[in-house]
C-alpha cells in the first residue's frame, strides 16, 4: 500500500514525530451531565488503540469528538498536526484524513456499493471518476466483496455492509481510522468476517482507534488498550497488562462481566 510506505518514510524522517492524535484535558458535557472528564490520550502514527469500557462510559463520545461529530467544550484535540476548533477549514482538513466506521454501518441506501465508495473521493478529493472507481474496486477486493459492487446496501448482509463501510472509509485514503463498535450490530457469524478485515487493515500499519468489546481482537492487534469508565480514562496499557493484570476494581469488575458474558 503506497500510502503507508509514504507515511512510514515520513515518520522515519522525523524521529520525534508529533502524535497522530492528541487529546489534552478534553472535557464535554451533555447539558449538566459531565460525559468526558479530563481525557488525555496520545496516539502515535501507526499505533493501534482499543478503547473498551461499560456502556455509557463515554468511549463512543470520545472518538466522535476526534472528527467532531460531537463537540468538546474544554481542552484541545489535535489531529494530524491540526487543531480542532471553530475554523471550518481545519475541520474539513481533518475529516479528509480521518475515516470512520459506525456501529450501524450508515451506508447510503440509495447509492450502489460502488457509488458509496466513490462519492467522497470524487467530490472531496476531486479524483477523476474512472480512477476513483478503479480504486474503489481495489478496496472492495481487499475487503473481499468486489462482486457486490453494483448492488445496493439493502441487498447485502450486515457483515458485508460493514465491510463496504470500511472500504468506503478507506477510499478516502485516510491516515487514521476510527471504529465505533463496528461489530456490535452484527450477528455472531458475521462478526468474524469484519474483525478479519480490521486485522488485515491493522497489518498495513494504519493508525487505528477502535471502540470494541472484542477482547480477542484487542489481544491480537492492539498496541494499547484504554479502559474508560464514567467519562474517565481509568487504565491504559498493553493488552496483557490491562487484561491479565488489572489494577483497579472498576476494570476488574468490567473484565469479570465481559468474561461471564462470553
Amino acid at each position, binding site marked *: 500500500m503506497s500510502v503507508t510506505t509514504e507515511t512510514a518514510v515520513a515518520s522515519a524522517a522525523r524521529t520525534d514525530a508529533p502524535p497522530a492524535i492528541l487529546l489534552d484535558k478534553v472535557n464535554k458535557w451533555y447539558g449538566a451531565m459531565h460525559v468526558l472528564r479530563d481525557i488525555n490520550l496520545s496516539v502515535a502514527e501507526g499505533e493501534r488503540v482499543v478503547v473498551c469500557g461499560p456502556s455509557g462510559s463515554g468511549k463512543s463520545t470520545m472518538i466522535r469528538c476526534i472528527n467532531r461529530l460531537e463537540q468538546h467544550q474544554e481542552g484541545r484535540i489535535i489531529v494530524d498536526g491540526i487543531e480542532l476548533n471553530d475554523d471550518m477549514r481545519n475541520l474539513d482538513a481533518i475529516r479528509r484524513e480521518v475515516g470512520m466506521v459506525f456501529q450501524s454501518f450508515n451506508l447510503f441506501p440509495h447509492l450502489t456499493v460502488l457509488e458509496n465508495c466513490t*462519492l467522497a473521493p470524487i467530490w*472531496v478529493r476531486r479524483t477523476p471518476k474512472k480512477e476513483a472507481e478503479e480504486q474503489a474496486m481495489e478496496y472492495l477486493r481487499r475487503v473481499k466483496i468486489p462482486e457486490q459492487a453494483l448492488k445496493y446496501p439493502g441487498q447485502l448482509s450486515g457483515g458485508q455492509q460493514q465491510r463496504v463501510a470500511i472500504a468506503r472509509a478507506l477510499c478516502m485514503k485516510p491516515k487514521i481510522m476510527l471504529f465505533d463498535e463496528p461489530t456490535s450490530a452484527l450477528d455472531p457469524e458475521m462478526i468474524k468476517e469484519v474483525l478479519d478485515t480490521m486485522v488485515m487493515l491493522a497489518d498495513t500499519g494504519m493508525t487505528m482507534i477502535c471502540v470494541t468489546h472484542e477482547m480477542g481482537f484487542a489481544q491480537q492487534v492492539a498496541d494499547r488498550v484504554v479502559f474508560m469508565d464514567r467519562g474517565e480514562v481509568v487504565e491504559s496499557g498493553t493488552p496483557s497488562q490491562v487484561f491479565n493484570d488489572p489494577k483497579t476494581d472498576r476494570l476488574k469488575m468490567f473484565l469479570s462481566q465481559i468474561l461471564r458474558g462470553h
Partner: protein
Amino acid sequence: MSDATLHAPAVSADTPSRRPPITVVGPVAWARASLFSSWLSTAVTLALAYLLARWIIGFVDWAFINAIWSVPVNAQGAQTQACRALQGAGACWAVITEKHRFILFGTYPYDEHWRPLVCVFLFIGLYIVSAMRRFWRKELALIWAGVLFLIGFLMWGGALGMPYVPQERWGGLVITLILSTFGIAFAFPLAVLVALGRRSRMPAIKMLCVVYVELIRGVPLISLLFMASVMFPLFLPEGMNIDKLLRAQVAIILFAAAYLAEVVRGGLQALSRGQYEAADALGLSYWQKTLFIILPQALRLVIPPLVNTFIGMFKDTSLVLIIGIFDLLTAGKTAIVEPAWQGFGIEVYVFVGIIYFIFCFAMSRYSQGLERGLNQHRVR
C-alpha cells in the same frame, strides 16, 4: 376458507407444483371472500349493485341516449329550444360543441386560437419529456427555458406576422397550465430551500423560514391573491405596473412553496442521523451532503404527499377567477352567461372537470410509477 389453504404446500422435487384450486385464487375466490362471505354481506352487495345499476342506466340515458349534440345557429344566435324541451332528461352537449373554443381559449382573438393550442401541446410535450427519467440531465433545464420562452413568444406575438395579444386577453386552459407549471417549477426549489433553512443552525435563517411558512400558511390563497392584485399595486411608485398575471403567479408560488416546504421537511426528518454523520465523516461539504445524500433520500420518501400538494395546487389555480383572470374554470363559467346557454352549467362543468381530471390523474399515475422506480433499492 379452510385452514389448509392458508399454508403454502411444501414443494419437493418429487411432487410437481400445481395451480391452486379455483376456490382459492382468481376472481371467483375474490368475489366469494369479498362480496358474498355472509348473508349480510350478500344483501349489502345486492342492494348496492342495484343502486349502481340504476344510476349508471340513468347517467347513460342522460349523457348519451337523450343527449343533444348540436343545435342550429342562425343570425339571432344559437337556437337552444330543443335542449330546453328536454327539461333535464338529456344532456345538451351542444353547449360544448358551440362553446368549447371559448372555454379552452377564453377571450383570445378567435383567429389566433392556434397559438394557445400550440402552447397547450408544448406544455404537454414538456411534461412528457420531463417525466422520462432518461432526460433527467442538465440539458433539461435548457429545454424548459427554451420551451417557456417559445410559449411566451407565441402567446404575446407581435412578430413574424403574429399580431400582438395583450395578456388581459389570454384565457382558458393555457392560463391554468401557465399558472400551475410556473407555480410548481418555482415553488418546489423554493420549498426545498425553505425546508433546509428551517433546519439550519443559523438562527436568523431559521427564523426567517419559520415566519415565512407560518405567515403564508395562516392566510387563505384567496386573500393572498387579493393582496397581489389590489393591495400590492398601491405601494408601487407612480407609473410602475407589474402584470396582473405575474402578480397572481407570484402569490401562487409563495403559497404553494410554504406547503411544499413542510412536506419536504417531513422527508428531511425521516432520515436517520447516521446518514448525516456518515456524510460529515467522509468530509462532504454541507451542499454536497444535502444534494447527494440527504435530498435524494428525503424527496423519495415524500413523493406521495408532494404529488398530493401538486395536484391540489393545480386545482387551486382556479381561484384566480376572483381577481378576474380567465383560467379554464372562469372561461367555462363565462361561456354560459349568454342568455341562450343559461342553465346548461352541468354540461360545462362536466367538460371542465374531465380536463382537470385528465391532468390530475396523469400526475397521480406518474407518481406511482416514479415511486416504484426510485425505490428499487429498498426491494431486496
